[in-house]
């Protein structure tokens, strides 16, 4: 009994800790701009200052913020493509690392890790120059490439751990059953590694979706600017006053795809984990 109460209190504390900022952003997004600037510290907007859905409408449709809907499309497109490519490449690479004996295997793994440890900021300058020379500055591909290369190492490490867990016999059984190596990989190994694939996908998507440094440095127009960078360009009628409630509404919109994707992928991960062991 005592334990249960303790557990409940603990869970409550952690929930408050994690969710309070989110809840506050949501509350903020429903307040009118005046309500924020005049000081209105309550959780619910005080009388007559509730904005309803106005902030959301404004962010999504007002001409003043016409770059924001475009940023949503950019973010979704860039993140999804980067995730997809990264997962495909990582799956193939991780499979090779887990299954094949080749020279320089350790070298590949440690280099991959070294890349992941490189601070993003130190690369932005050179990339800026390079991208401009190559003509991919301010394009989707210009962001997809750095996102991929920064998430690949982690994806490869996660996936190769998953592949190592899959018994060799699975693949051998498939080969004896008449599968080519590729068929064995696609029809047996990949489905079995699905939890790993989705874990890698989630991590990659998070990185791409949340990135700010690349997003703001490697873009100049709305052609490729993602949401986090786009939020930095929000200005209200008064240039010295950031439109806090509009920003809040935009932030909430930016959070929704992440939640949706996590929920979808999480189900896949759980389904993969419970699909059953091999041995009796």
């Amino acid at each position, binding site marked *: 009994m005592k334990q249960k109460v303790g557990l409940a209190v603990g869970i409550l504390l952690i929930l408050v800790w994690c969710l309070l900022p989110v809840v506050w952003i949501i509350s903020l997004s429903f307040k009118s701009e005046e309500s924020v600037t005049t000081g209105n510290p309550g959780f619910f907007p005080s009388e007559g200052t509730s904005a309803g859905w106005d902030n959301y409408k404004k962010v999504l449709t007002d001409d003043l913020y016409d770059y924001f809907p475009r940023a949503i499309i950019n973010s979704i497109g860039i993140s999804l493509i980067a995730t997809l490519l990264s997962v495909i490449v990582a799956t193939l690479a991780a499979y090779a690392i887990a299954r094949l004996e080749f020279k320089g295997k350790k070298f590949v793994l440690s280099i991959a890790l070294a890349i992941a440890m490189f601070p993003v900021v130190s690369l932005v300058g050179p990339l800026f120059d390079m991208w401009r020379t190559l003509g991919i500055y301010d394009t989707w591909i210009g962001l997809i490439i750095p996102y991929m290369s920064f998430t690949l190492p982690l994806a490869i490490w996660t996936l190769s751990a998953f592949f190592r867990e899959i018994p060799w016999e699975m693949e051998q059984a498939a080969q004896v059953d008449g599968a080519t190596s590729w068929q064995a990989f696609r029809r047996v190994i990949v489905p079995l590694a699905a939890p790993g694939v989705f874990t890698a996908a989630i991590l990659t998507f998070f990185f791409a979706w949340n990135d700010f440094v690349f997003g703001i440095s490697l873009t100049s127009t709305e052609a490729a600017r993602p949401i986090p960078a786009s939020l930095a360009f929000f200005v209200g009628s008064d240039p010295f006053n950031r439109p806090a409630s509009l920003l809040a509404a935009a932030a909430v919109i930016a959070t929704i795809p992440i939640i949706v994707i996590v929920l979808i992928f999480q189900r896949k991960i759980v389904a993969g984990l419970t699909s059953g062991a091999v041995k*009796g």
Partner: protein
Amino acid sequence: MASIDMRNIVKQYGDGFPAVNDVSIDVKDGEFMILVGPSGCGKSTLLRMIVGLEDITSGDMMIGDRRVNDLAPRDRNLAMVFQNYALYPHLTVYENIAFPLRLAKVDNETVDKKVREASKTLELDEHLERKPGNLSGGQRQRVAMGRAIVRDADAFLFDEPLSNLDAKLRGQMRTEIARLQKRLGITTVYVTHDQTEAMTLGDRVAVLKRGVLQQLATPRELYEQPANLFVAGFIGSPPMNFLPATVEGTTVKLPFGSVEIPAEKAQKAAGKGLLIAGIRPEHFEDAAVMDSAKTAGHTFRTRVDVVEWLGNESYAYIPFEAPPEVQAQLTQLEKDLDGEAMRTQLVVSLDGASRVAEGDEAEIYVNSDHMHLFDPSTGENLTLDTSSAGKVPSGDAMAQADEVGQAQDEVSSSAQTEEA
């Protein structure tokens, strides 16, 4: 359907580890062949070479009249049941069984017909829609077999399929496999380390030690005419008793006393000095429950240490001292058989009616017709009747295995030092 002919198969791993050495086994069409031996004898490696999961260093692997050395597993048309079943956990039982057919691009209707047929044979009908994770060990085993029988494979290969089951289920599945094989009449190679499975299932049994074939014969031939100490000790439970013995004329001197043996056997062993006599437990009897006319000249008196009464029979244990040269060979033999070197003792199987109790002095009868005499230095069976011993490889298989064993140990120990 096809025969499998292994001709002088050798497997040497990249680090020089000699896993299989010049093994020749011919599996006839429709035959149930068992590969048996203690762990590390190369039996699984041999099986994996048949199916193509392991490269063949030298020798010819013939399936039917095709040389398959360089064919990929999928081109050999063999079905294999793995030790851990290797079911695909993301597929239902139905799809698991259908998997080989799906890969062969068989149309749905035929797939359905064949899967239902296989599931009926194996009584899996009510589990078809379940995932392997929700099945018991025995059910998984049957699914693995379903996947094998659903295609028209040339042969079945089993890699210790029963070792993950509990004792009772193992017995049931054993008969199930035997029945299935007889019904389908398909060539089968079955790997096991369990001599009971080997004896009960096999048409013929190949006994391997350290990658060297020791004897290839029917279970009965192996039991009655073991080619050497290793085969003698491996086949039979409780195992054959090994006693130090010297032959003088037609009399064999054992630690407990002397018994007469047939002249023909005595002749083969004459003048060899100290030998090892091998007598199976059931070739002893309590003289008190026998006709005294029969037992004359074949009995000795000794003190019984422990008696285990099982109802239909009882086992009596009689300790004895062995001279060092025999002792060394017996200790080595125990090690080769995955056992631990225990005190040297005689195990005799007595009739259930016997009243011999612990600590009693008893008169024990020996049926010396079935006695074998082994050379303690090479382990060779001197009294072997080669006409009814199946195929015994020429040369001294046991000594050869010891040599290979030494080479193996050297490779593994050098690998260990490298790691350290």
